[in-house]
């Protein structure tokens, strides 16, 4: 065989160089997003013309919505892709945006992660599409979240998670403990419960960034202030002090079960009375019904305990939106789909499937509020959730890189859960690490 190795080597070098070059350029984010208004006529025309629409979402109720949308607009084909849940999808999306290839037309993004994409110009401002006209439809928490600290609207709210206190009534009745209405009463209840049954705890907690930030939110703390790329992080305001005062006692007296959320042990604990309460978003009932079947009838919902007696302030925990990545195509179709799913007929479809609305009209509707939850012994729990939604303080903002910040929560604040480190010191080192990362990423971050 006669082969010219020099040419071979040259070819090889060329191929490697190409491979390097192809992956090398991916950074500049100056893709021109048009800001001229998109009229309803444009959208209608696009719907008639049809085309393919790629939607990245893991929300299960969207499947039916996509099918209905296709039925209504036969020319449109919706390709609903589950690119992973939460963080996994964000990694994929960030990679696609960096590579400028394979970016979906519509993406599901949780509220806490929205800022990262909005500020790096990864998402279209939906105001020119007419999203500002939909603003009044949404309850304050989600609406504030999709603005990501700006005046623009970067996504349409899909669902929301106004917080409530879920409690195991059976356990509270058994030990004759009053359901707490303030966090101080919560602490008293925690002591009483653990004393009555050393195996039972008021709650589980092994350090959860989402939970902590939500409770800080409710306590009136505003640790993150975001103004474009100028960020301030401060975990030592009065609200944070209220939170740490109560939580430090819960930790010191070992009143929190060392069980991580969403584990087998956790589901078991919710079922057998080991974990007596759960302060979380209103999307929880569906998870109770499927994950903790055995305890059906034991649990009830109550308003989230207040930091000062009589205060009604609430907070959001979780929830997500549909956004249009700048590099996606078929903008008019994409917006039409997001609007259909989150402000149009899709909302009812998703509510029927068990989703929790972000739209005020649905939250206030009597059918919604009068829905009886068999799991909660027939309680009309939506009334509590709707009240909570109305009382969410709307001036909260997450960091534009909250996804990363949450990933190092246990490195820093987690120390307070397993060693002598105080919660305030843990929050302080979380603050320091977040400041450091933000500055490395080109933000101007101050303490």
């Amino acid at each position, binding site marked *: 065989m006669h082969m010219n*190795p020099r040419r071979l080597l040259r070819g090889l070098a060329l191929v490697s160089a190409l491979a390097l070059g192809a992956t090398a350029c991916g950074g500049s984010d100056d893709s021109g997003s048009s800001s001229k208004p998109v009229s309803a006529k444009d959208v209608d025309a696009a719907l008639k013309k049809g085309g393919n629409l790629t939607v990245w979402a893991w929300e299960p109720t969207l499947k039916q919505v996509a099918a209905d949308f296709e039925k209504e607009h036969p020319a449109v084909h919706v390709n609903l892709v589950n690119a992973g849940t939460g963080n996994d999808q964000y990694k994929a999306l960030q990679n696609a945006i960096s590579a400028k290839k394979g970016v979906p037309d519509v993406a599901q993004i949780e509220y806490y992660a929205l800022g990262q994409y909005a500020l790096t110009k990864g998402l279209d401002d939906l105001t020119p599409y007419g999203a500002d006209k939909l603003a009044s439809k949404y309850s304050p928490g989600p609406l504030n979240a999709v603005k990501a600290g700006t005046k623009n609207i970067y996504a349409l709210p899909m669902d929301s998670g106004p917080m409530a206190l879920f409690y195991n009534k059976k356990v509270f009745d058994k030990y004759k403990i009053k359901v707490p209405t303030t966090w101080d009463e919560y602490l008293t209840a925690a002591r009483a419960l653990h004393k009555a049954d050393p195996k039972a705890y008021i709650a589980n907690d092994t350090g959860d960034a989402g939970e902590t930030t939500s409770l800080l939110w409710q306590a009136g703390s505003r640790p993150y202030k975001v103004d474009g790329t100028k960020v301030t992080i401060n975990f030592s305001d009065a609200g944070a002090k209220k939170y740490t005062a109560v939580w430090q006692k819960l930790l010191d007296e070992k009143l929190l079960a060392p069980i991580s959320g969403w584990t087998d042990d956790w589901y078991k604990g919710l079922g057998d009375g080991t974990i007596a309460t759960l302060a979380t978003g209103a999307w929880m009932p569906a998870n109770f019904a499927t994950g903790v079947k055995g305890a059906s009838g034991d649990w009830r919902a109550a308003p989230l305990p207040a930091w000062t007696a009589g205060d009604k302030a609430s907070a959001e925990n979780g929830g997500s939106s549909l956004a249009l990545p700048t590099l996606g195509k078929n903008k008019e179709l994409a917006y039409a789909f997001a609007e259909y799913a989150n402000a149009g007929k899709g909302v009812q479809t998703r509510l029927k499937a068990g989703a929790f609305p972000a739209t005020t009209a649905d939250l206030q509707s009597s059918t919604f509020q009068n829905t009886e939850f068999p799991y909660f012994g027939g309680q009309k729990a939506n009334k509590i959730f709707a009240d909570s939604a109305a009382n969410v303080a709307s001036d909260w903002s997450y960091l534009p890189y909250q996804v990363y910040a949450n990933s190092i929560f246990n490195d820093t604040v987690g120390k307070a859960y397993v060693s002598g480190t105080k919660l305030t010191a843990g929050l302080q080192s979380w603050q320091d690490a977040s400041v450091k990362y933000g500055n490395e990423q080109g933000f101007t971050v101050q303490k």
Partner: protein
Amino acid sequence: MTTLQPPAAATRPPTPPPAKRDRRSWTGWGFIGPFAVVFAFVFLAPIAYSIYLSLFRTQLIGGTTFVGLDNYQQALQDHQFWDSLARVSLFLLVQVPIMLGIALLVALALDSGRLYGKDFFRISIFLPYAVPAVVATLMWGFMYGTRFGLVSDINDAFGVSLPNPLGPDLILASIGNIVTWEFVGYNMLIFYSTLRVIPHSLYEAAQIDGAGQIRVITAIKLPAIRGALVIATIFSIIGTFQLFNEPSILQKLAPNSITTDYTPNYYTYSLSFSGQQNNYSATVAIVMGVITMVIAYVVQLRGMRKGA
């Protein structure tokens, strides 16, 4: 007549090189070609790409810029990186001698010929190596649990309160235990196979000289497996510096005991997958690779010199 005759040899014109020599033969390249291609793509290209990546910095705000050696400078001053390196170094100094010591003892015991059921013993010591690290870690993780599993059962049964193996103070030792369990069999096999090739005549000579078992071990067996010991040590150093599976899986069970910068490898993983700092992650990986290479090389040099 007086003309000086140069030596005959010098006068002879140099023999022209064979004509073939002008056209270099590429046949040899043809043979290593397939290897070279694969080697270039799976070995050299990733390294080259990592080095290339490490010269840039991508920011959420500001995009990608060329920063030269800034990332390296940052890595050298990064206490998170050095802390994780110190952690695996401590692990190396404690766990590796224990693991190799046990492996050596077992290998000598098997080789002594005084063991009943030798084959069964050998295979059962080796078996943990056949268990995937992920499965092994999960299995041990469940045993360590103080709310479920073995530790909790012991606590309940005897009414004691054992220290939590997943707590921040004991977690490194717990990981060491898992790694020891996994790799004793593997190292034992390296030692044992070396012991098997020692010529039997040496033992006979020792017997004639009246040497006992201990003397046979110190004078014949240990010197004979010195090379294997060095190899096993180098493997263990590399393995320790690359520690990743065990901490990353136990992190789910003990989220507050294992930080995302627990070992150098876990740190690079977190940097690129949670922090999107691929460039810096590549830098840390390269620095760590160089450190590993240097240490392994020094151990090899020292080990071999002693053996000579």
